[in-house]
């Protein structure tokens, strides 16, 4: 078949549209056609070769030109350098060069010096910061340990039948201890806030209990001043919310104590209400109202500043560190709210704040406990019989805790270090282990880790330490401890822990 366009055209031109050839002629034409194709192919190939090779050559050429240019530049520089050396003033020029070199060297040295100074300054600052943290932790520990003894002993003695005047003295000792303790706490909190180290927990919390506790604590103070204390609690509030019970209590206590402190007559009220937000979410609104001295408009702004009280005379008259409100404001802000103060000078003040309600699915431990009347001496031991082991190296502290527990109706066993704890646990089973952290031979943390790795029934382990920092608490929990009690250990806190332990023990055995 003839298909080459040129050959086809030539055939049509010579023979018209309809032509027929003999097979021989057809074969001949096919060979002619092959020759046409061969020519076409060869031409195309040659064109391609020309194109590719000229491209390659021009690339090589431009590379050569670039190389040439580089050579010329180099040559020019060389020539310049040579002429420079031939110059009569070369000596001066050389000296100039030397000067530049020296100058550069000097600048480099200077920069290095600055760098080193900066580095050592930073190291010093880091070290100072660390020293400050260490100091705070130590101070906390060092002050709390004797305070623990003072408050514990005073509290114990108050339960004894003593002369009323001695009892009053003891009470004063205890209250002074409490004030000192709260001062330490304030200073610690303040330093934490300053360092941005405060973290707000989102744990299941029994709001009603937190409010009740706070009111209970200030109720004695209020009754002493013959002030009425009123609690208005909204029934619509959920039983359990997610929040930080310690911090909520801290703020409430601060506001309530301030109210008591600055009110001579009348009443103090705390109202806790559920507010519905526009966006559908809920808020808990706390309002603390008093009929005290009030705050002058020009003093309002300074209220929440660190170390500032409304008036210098206030410090003289009412005492305090001036940290309380600043800390409370910061804590409320961290919880997503703001403390607002309204006051008519001389007629009283209203402090209120609202925090978002985050509903909790999990019940809080205390919700499951039947709250009963205040416990009489030895009553708890009968209601919630438990075997309790105390690990504490300090003799005074041993005595304090043992006495508190004795009052609550428990006979306890004492271990002076972690190793003794392990030995005692080998011999006998305990339900609750109150464990000091810093002990000789084997620390509380180490002992806890070993206990947790063991098989079989294990006691509930509650850390007892004067080291009140929050990191310390997480260290305790990470080591496997179940909860944490700050020293000085208070009778009511200890009772709560015992109740919880009893509930958990019986709850789990009931399940089993």
């Amino acid at each position: 078949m003839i298909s080459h366009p040129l050959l086809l055209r030539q055939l049509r031109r010579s023979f018209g549209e309809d032509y027929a050839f003999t097979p021989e002629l057809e074969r001949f034409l096919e060979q002619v056609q092959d020759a046409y194709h061969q020519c076409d192919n060869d031409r195309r190939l040659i064109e391609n070769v020309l194109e590719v090779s000229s491209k390659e050559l021009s690339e090589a050429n431009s590379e050569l030109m670039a190389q040439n240019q580089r050579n010329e530049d180099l040559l020019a520089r060389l020539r310049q350098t040579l002429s420079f050396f031939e110059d009569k003033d070369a000596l001066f020029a050389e000296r100039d060069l030397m000067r530049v070199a020296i100058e550069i060297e000097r600048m480099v040295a200077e920069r290095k010096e600055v760098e080193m100074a900066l580095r050592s300054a930073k190291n010093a600052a880091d070290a100072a910061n660390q020293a400050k943290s260490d100091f705070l932790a130590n101070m906390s520990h060092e002050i709390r340990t004797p305070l623990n003894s003072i408050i514990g002993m005073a509290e114990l003695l108050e339960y004894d039948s003593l002369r009323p005047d001695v009892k009053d003295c003891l009470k004063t000792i205890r209250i002074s201890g409490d004030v000192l303790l709260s001062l330490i706490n304030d200073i610690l909190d303040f330093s934490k806030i300053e360092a941005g180290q405060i973290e707000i927990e989102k744990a299941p919390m029994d709001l009603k209990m937190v409010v009740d506790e706070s009111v209970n604590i200030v109720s004695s103070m209020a009754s002493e001043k013959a002030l009425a204390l009123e609690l208005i609690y909204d029934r619509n509030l959920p039983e359990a919310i997610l929040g930080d019970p310690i911090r909520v209590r801290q703020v409430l206590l601060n506001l309530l104590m301030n109210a008591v402190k600055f009110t001579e007559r009348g009443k103090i009220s705390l109202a806790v209400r559920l507010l519905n937000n526009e966006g559908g979410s809920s808020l808990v609104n706390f309002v603390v109202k008093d009929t005290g001295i009030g705050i002058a408009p020009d003093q309002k702004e300074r209220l929440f500043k660190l170390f500032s009280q409304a008036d210098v005379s206030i410090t003289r008259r009412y005492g305090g560190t001036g940290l309380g409100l600043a800390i409370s404001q910061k804590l409320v802000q961290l919880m997503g709210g703001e403390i607002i103060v309204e006051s008519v000078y001389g007629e009283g003040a209203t402090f209120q704040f609202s925090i978002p309600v985050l509903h909790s699915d999990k019940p809080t431990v205390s919700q499951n406990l039947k709250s009963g009347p205040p416990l009489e001496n030895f009553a708890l031991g009968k209601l919630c019989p438990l075997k309790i082991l105390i690990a504490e190296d300090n003799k005074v502290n041993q005595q304090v805790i043992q006495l508190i527990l004795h009052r609550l109706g428990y006979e306890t066993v004492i271990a002076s270090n972690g190793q003794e704890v392990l030995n005692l646990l080998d011999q006998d089973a305990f339900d609750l282990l109150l464990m000091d952290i810093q002990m000789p031979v084997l620390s509380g943390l180490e002992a806890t880790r070993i206990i947790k790795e063991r098989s079989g029934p294990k006691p509930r382990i509650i850390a007892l330490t004067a080291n009140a920092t929050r990191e310390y608490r997480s260290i305790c929990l990470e080591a496997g401890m179940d909860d944490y009690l700050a020293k000085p250990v208070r009778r009511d806190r200890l009772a709560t822990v015992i109740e919880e332990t009893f509930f958990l023990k019986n709850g789990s055995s009931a399940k089993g």
Partner: protein
Amino acid sequence: MKLLQCSFTPGNAWSEPKGLLNPKDASLVFAFGQRAPLSHPESFAALRTRFPTARIVLVSTAGSFSDTVIEDASIVCTAVSFDHIKTVFAMERLVSSEGLVDTCNKLAASLSVPGLRHVLIFSDGSIVNGTTLSEAFNESLPSGVTMSGGLAGDGFDFVKTLVGLDQPAAPGVIVAIGLCGSSLRIGFGSVGGWTPFGPERSVTSSDKNTLLQLDGKPALELYKMYLGHEADSLPASALRFPLYVTAPGQKKPVVRTILSVDEDKGLMTFAGDIPVNSTAQLMRSSYEDLIAGAEHAAVAARQEAELVLCVSCVGRRIVLGQRVEEELEGVRATFGNNPVLTGFYSYGELAPSGHDLKCQLHNQTMTITSISERE
């Protein structure tokens, strides 16, 4: 010397013979044919019947020369009976390319008879490295003995090549024919007609006769770029651009032609070694240059020849296309009408070169050995 030339086409019997020699008196027959007719089951029997007492040398080709006509479908047989020249034959079969030097030494030893003047070599062209072969023979043949011949071909297929002596042709076979006696007159010519073009490149990666990179770039890519639309018919189309290779430390460049291509590995296998750091340049040619090259080879080999053995490169056939026979016509015109002309398109030509007439592998050339007898 008496000669007879005729062709055998399987299934189509013999063509009309040319020459005065009675086939029964033939002592040597060159049987050149493409792989298909050569390996046809009836071919060897037909040859043996026709030439009952001759030593029959079979070589597969990329086209066989019957005078100035190129035969692809038939086996071109050129029968010879020498008056004075004595012949000696040797054949070896190579299993792998490693044993090549030993095989060549063995062959050379078999041929070492008194009066040996020239050796005709017909070798497998797939697994045999022509460079190694010619160097091995140069080492082992007595000095003054010249050598020429060629590597077998396989059309444009590059699959396998066959050679045989007195038995059907097979892969890996090398046949050597020693020509002895003072009456032997022999002439050589080997000319290409190719011109290097484009940039000179450096061989940056290669192993013996496989080439990987030129100037740090894949050689196969370079070939594809130059071939353009012809790249579809690799490896045959790569023969259009032989490589002009000057090995490091050598002054005389050699022409190297492509044997096969491994697309996956990017390898190109050449008919001779391409050492690393050689300079290499692509070559091209025109019909006129190739035909003129063939004529120059004929001029170099010219004498009062009786038999003209032409070994031309398959690459030339690819370039020349339909005009391929013009190079044979050029040879014929140079030698006149008398001598019998035969030969084949090969995968590598062997011919003496240089002042010492050492045998060398040539690529892309027309290589001519002219033979005559005189008292």
